[in-house]
């Protein structure tokens, strides 16, 4: 294990923040106070936390996310309270309440946005990588996309484009078993994403998404290779999402007990805890303290979001253009 204590605590905090953010949103959504579509990332924490920790905190490294973007946003370092306000549609939201859950972004720290269009982020990452290449920033662009997005032409085009220009892009396939109600084992022709990436000349690897250590190891290796000028890489991360496709999805397409068993035996946070406690690398106290801190943060975030006013009506027509 090549992470020091602080790094481990950071990683755990990241995953716990995501989990609590999502679990809480699940409950809050049920109260009817949150507008629009909400897609939760619970169960997939090790991907965001394991990959994004290798990126620099400034804007030279970037992340392009998906409709299921809360986890990536938190891992990049978006303001959790402003995110919550955004999702509630309130003043002070990270995107001034114009974007909502599906469009959370903070370009100033390299978070290029959640995306309402499946596959829409992959070419944006090529652009960010082009910036890094032209400006010689040494930056890496990480593109997260789902198993459904892997069958979208835009994604495939972007992979080829990144290859022919040796762009510094890490393509991360988050295969959570389903695209809406459709199984990834059916939708991905050939059934071997790593081979598909190889068809574009991109080296890839499959990792168990429940295992933070496996993810961060694979991502670290890939990102290092990219920074060394090797061009794009690919990671196929495999896990299951815990909630429905969106809040409100009855998920009858899933085998009975699929999630129950997954949560019970394969929860990435539990596996992380077990691993670090077993090796006596971190203390249970330290982990519990993080749990408490995160719980307070999320409580505050929800309270503040609920109390925040709606955005000013005058903002309806602003921000369409820089000038017009």
């Amino acid at each position, binding site marked *: 294990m090549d992470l020091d204590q602080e790094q481990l605590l950071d990683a755990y905090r990241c995953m716990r923040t995501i989990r609590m953010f999502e679990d809480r949103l699940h409950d809050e959504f049920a109260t009817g106070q949150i*507008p*629009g579509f909400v897609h939760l990332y619970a169960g997939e924490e090790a991907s965001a936390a394991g990959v994004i920790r290798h990126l620099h905190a400034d804007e030279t490294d970037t992340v392009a996310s998906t409709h299921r973007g809360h986890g990536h946003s938190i891992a990049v370092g978006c303001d959790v309270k402003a995110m919550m306000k955004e999702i509630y549609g309130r003043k002070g939201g990270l995107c001034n309440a114009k974007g*909502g859950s599906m469009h959370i972004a903070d370009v100033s720290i390299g978070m290029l946005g959640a995306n309402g269009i499946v596959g829409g982020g992959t070419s944006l990452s090529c652009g960010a990588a082009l910036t890094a290449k032209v400006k010689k920033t040494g930056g890496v662009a990480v593109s997260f996309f789902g198993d459904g997005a892997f069958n979208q032409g835009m994604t495939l085009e972007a992979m080829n484009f990144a290859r022919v220009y040796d762009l510094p892009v890490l393509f991360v396939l988050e295969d959570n078993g389903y695209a809406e109600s*459709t199984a990834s084992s059916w*939708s991905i022709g050939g059934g071997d994403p790593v081979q598909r990436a190889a068809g574009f000349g991109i080296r890839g690897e499959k990792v168990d998404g429940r295992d933070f250590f496996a993810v961060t190891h694979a991502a670290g290796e890939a990102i290092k290779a990219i920074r060394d000028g090797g061009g794009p890489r690919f990671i196929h991360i495999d896990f299951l999402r815990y909630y429905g496709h969106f809040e409100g999805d009855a998920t009858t397409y899933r*085998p009975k007990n699929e999630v129950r068993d997954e949560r019970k035996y394969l929860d990435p946070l539990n596996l992380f805890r077990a691993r670090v406690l077993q090796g006596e690398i971190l203390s249970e106290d330290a982990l519990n303290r993080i749990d408490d801190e995160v719980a307070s943060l999320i409580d505050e975030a929800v309270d503040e979001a609920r109390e925040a006013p709606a955005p000013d*009506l005058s903002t309806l027509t602003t921000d369409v253009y820089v000038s017009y």
Partner: protein
Amino acid sequence: MPVITFREALNAAMRNEMKRDENVILLGEDIAGGKGAGGQQDAWGGVLGATAGLYTEFGPDRVFDTPISESAFIGAAAGAAVTGLRPVAQLMFVTFFGVAGDALFNQMAKFRYMFGGKTKTPCVIRTLYGAGTGAASQHSDCYYPIFTHVPGLKVVVPSTPYEAKGLMISAIRDDDPVIFFEHQAMSGDKGEVPDGEYTVPFGEARVVREGKDATVVALGRMVQFAEKAAEELAQDGVECELLDPRTASPLDSDAILKSVKKTGRLVIVDESLPRCGLASDISAIISEQGFHTLKAPIRRVTPQHNHVPFAPNLEQAHIPSPEKIVEAVKSVTGGK
């Protein structure tokens, strides 16, 4: 008459046509649901449930769940249509035309013309549109003006469950490509819908309400808002003639002209954007052909030139409202 939802009305229309003609097939993401999964099959019936049960009834050779591959399956709909099927494909939200634009605008819309009239492309593209559910900028567009702009396509924007069923049956029987717009906020709206089959014609406006003081044209969800406005105006003694064109392409400009000849005033209510939108289009046609009958400027009630915002208060302010319609009508009838 049975009272059913918009989505049920669409479901009934598709079921009817699938029974009637075995060449009618369905394509789309999760239109059945559960493809390849270990749980229930036919688990979704489409994102808002309009195709529920059709997979169970007609089986896997008539109802095709697709990967997230819009250009492939909308293109396949076009290719299947020219070779003998009558596909009904769902582009989940119209905003996603960005990933299927080629098949829509450059293939199915152009085949017949480019091939000198020697082929036909009978397919229906169902698509969700419209603001009002908090779905924000990438799931709320009303892009029917873009489809209306392009020759070769027919564009249907139904306003009630009754209309939806009859127009959908017409769409499936039509020999040209039809883009069928379903307002996401209307999916659960209820209305009287007969059990049997019936068609509602394209290119023939529906007179929703007769009146002599001002003509109001509205389509899709705006019809119900315009009805509310008309009721309120009637209490003030202003009688609106409310027309629902039903289809944006073809457009029944004759009916509008006829009404404007009577009323001398026109207000167009449109949820699509103002620039090069449908309200502008209708305005231009009527002002060109009905200039001498107009007693006041044509007023357009539309959103402003911005995307659909997320926050509920902004979103509501974005959409035309009965109040704004009342105000617009009063402005052309002189406040009366």
